[in-house]
């Protein structure tokens, strides 16, 4: 089937009687209807995604407040960000720490739980999938953690610890610098078994079963070898998508953090680049400066993704 498609693909390309350019023009004219079909989506995509990204790079070299025409200031915003803005450096550090922990962990948890769940029988499998996936779609259910870890004796955790005599006074979980980061990381992980988790669930189900029998003949003895030598190499496409979704997701917990520990967070312990952006863009209307923040964030996210997908491409080669 793929060989067949390749033949169809190649046929028009090997024409030698016309130049590549005029062939392209001819193909474009022939496929007018295709462009009509993608136009509505891609016009909106350009207006609401491509243009904003390019615009934020441009505006990051200016000062702009929506009222006056932007003034070109060169690299000033970036210099100010990196040399003059201590809180931004805290934000970068927090974002990287948070993303470096939640991204890979959420990815590995998605993969391993999906693998474990795949061992179950179909009826139970559907139920367990629901249990693991539910937190990620349950709206603002993460707020229930503020009651679980509430700072008074009525919170479940504090109440339990007090009752058992482990502590004498309630712990202020969401105000205490030592607890904030670990706690939001746990909550973020809890709510992060989302689309990438489903990708893995589905990926495990469609692995060709005859490969396992062939593998057993070749000396594969247990489930770990089976995972490493057969399942994961055939699931590389799912691993790629899962990685991208997990990494992008790990940069997107700003709203959850604000809802749990407030904005700005105590002593900026949970202040991320998203919060810095919100501060300067949404509140102070320093659009040039905040565009510089957004541009840095953009390159961080895309850079992390490209790095990891390049790494995954090497798996099994």
């Amino acid at each position: 089937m793929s060989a067949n498609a390749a033949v169809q693909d190649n046929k028009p390309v090997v024409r030698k009687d016309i130049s590549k350019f005029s062939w392209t023009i001819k193909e474009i004219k022939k496929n007018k209807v295709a462009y009509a079909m993608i136009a509505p989506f891609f016009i909106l995509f350009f207006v609401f995604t491509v243009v904003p990204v390019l615009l934020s790079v441009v505006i990051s070299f200016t000062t702009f407040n929506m009222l006056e025409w932007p003034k070109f200031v060169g690299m000033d915003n970036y210099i100010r960000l990196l040399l003059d803005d201590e809180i931004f450096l805290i934000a970068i550090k927090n974002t990287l720490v948070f993303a470096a922990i939640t991204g890979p962990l959420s990815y590995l948890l998605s993969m391993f739980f999906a693998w474990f769940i795949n061992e179950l029988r179909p009826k139970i499998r559907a139920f367990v999938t629901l249990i693991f996936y539910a937190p990620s779609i349950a709206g603002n259910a993460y707020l229930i953690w503020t009651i679980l870890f509430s700072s008074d004796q009525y919170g479940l955790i504090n109440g339990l610890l007090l009752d058992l005599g482990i502590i004498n006074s309630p712990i202020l979980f969401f105000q205490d610098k030592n607890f904030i980061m670990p706690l939001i990381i746990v909550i973020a992980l809890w709510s992060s078994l989302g689309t990438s988790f489903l990708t893995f669930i589905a990926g495990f189900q469609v692995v060709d079963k005859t490969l396992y029998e062939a593998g057993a003949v070749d000396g594969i003895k247990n489930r770990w070898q089976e995972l490493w030598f057969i399942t994961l190499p055939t699931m590389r496409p799912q691993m790629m998508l899962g990685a991208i979704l997990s990494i992008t997701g790990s940069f997107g917990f700003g709203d959850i953090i604000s809802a749990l520990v407030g904005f700005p967070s105590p002593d900026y312990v949970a202040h991320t680049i998203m919060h810095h952006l919100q501060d300067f863009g949404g509140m102070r209307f320093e659009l040039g400066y905040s565009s510089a923040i957004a541009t840095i964030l953009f390159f961080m996210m895309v850079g992390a993704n490209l790095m990891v997908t390049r790494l995954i491409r090497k798996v099994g080669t």
Partner: protein
Amino acid sequence: MASYNKPAKRYRALNRSLGGDIGVYIVLAIIGTIMVIPLVYAIAQSLKPLDELFIFPPRLFVVNPTHKNFGDLFRLMGTSWVPFSRYIFNTLFYSVTGTIGNVLLSSMAAYAMSKIKFPGRSFLFQMIVYSLMFNATVTGITNFITMSALGMVDTIFAIIIPAWCTTFGLYLMKQFMESSVPDEVLESARLEGAGEFRIFIKIAMPMVKPAWITLIIFAFNGLWNQGANMFIYSEQLKTFNYAIGQILAGGIARSGAAAASTVVTMIVPIIVFIITQSNIIQTMSTSGMKD
């Protein structure tokens, strides 16, 4: 054979040891319990009468369940300045119109990109893949500038129209069409003189039902859970989720109603997922990224 009259013995599956199986079950049971406790706790809180909400030591489960908290929630809704039905209508209106446009535009584009060989399609698809690598925080501020230039700020269009072009929806649909709609069928329809639009609606769309169900669920969930939106100021354009958050900021006296609202908002997406799970899994099985 000696065992011909015995019931067939169940052999262990290939490469699976009993100890390993038990280990898997134990891990899933423990982690599954941790995953579900906060949700169970939310439901229990919503059913607790006031004296059980503030009891020491606190209990996970409810002893005398009451539906009073849900009553309180609806009573609180009645006290808001803009009639609460307006917020509910807004959320429904945004969710429905946003979802319909989203599924239509992305399926149409996905059909063209997966089934018609036109110059530029791999470049455009590469852009879609790159767009999965960053989130909307990056584009928020400049989107605000674009939208004010287009006069969309503080209108319903600021919510609905951006919802029409979620790149992940296009990505999923394109991958699914590529592997589930055979080219031969389309080719024979073309030979019979059917236009691409007709083939798309009459032949391709019925074949990718799991994918558009998945797109509907993802788009609807996103819009349904939408809270405050930075492009909307007018109170009468805001959503149910936002309004409920405002009401419940009212402190301890409302913690029962707060739990009730959490239950109300989480129950809808969960039920929808239960109904559509097999379709969604089927769609995700083709979603991998080939390099």
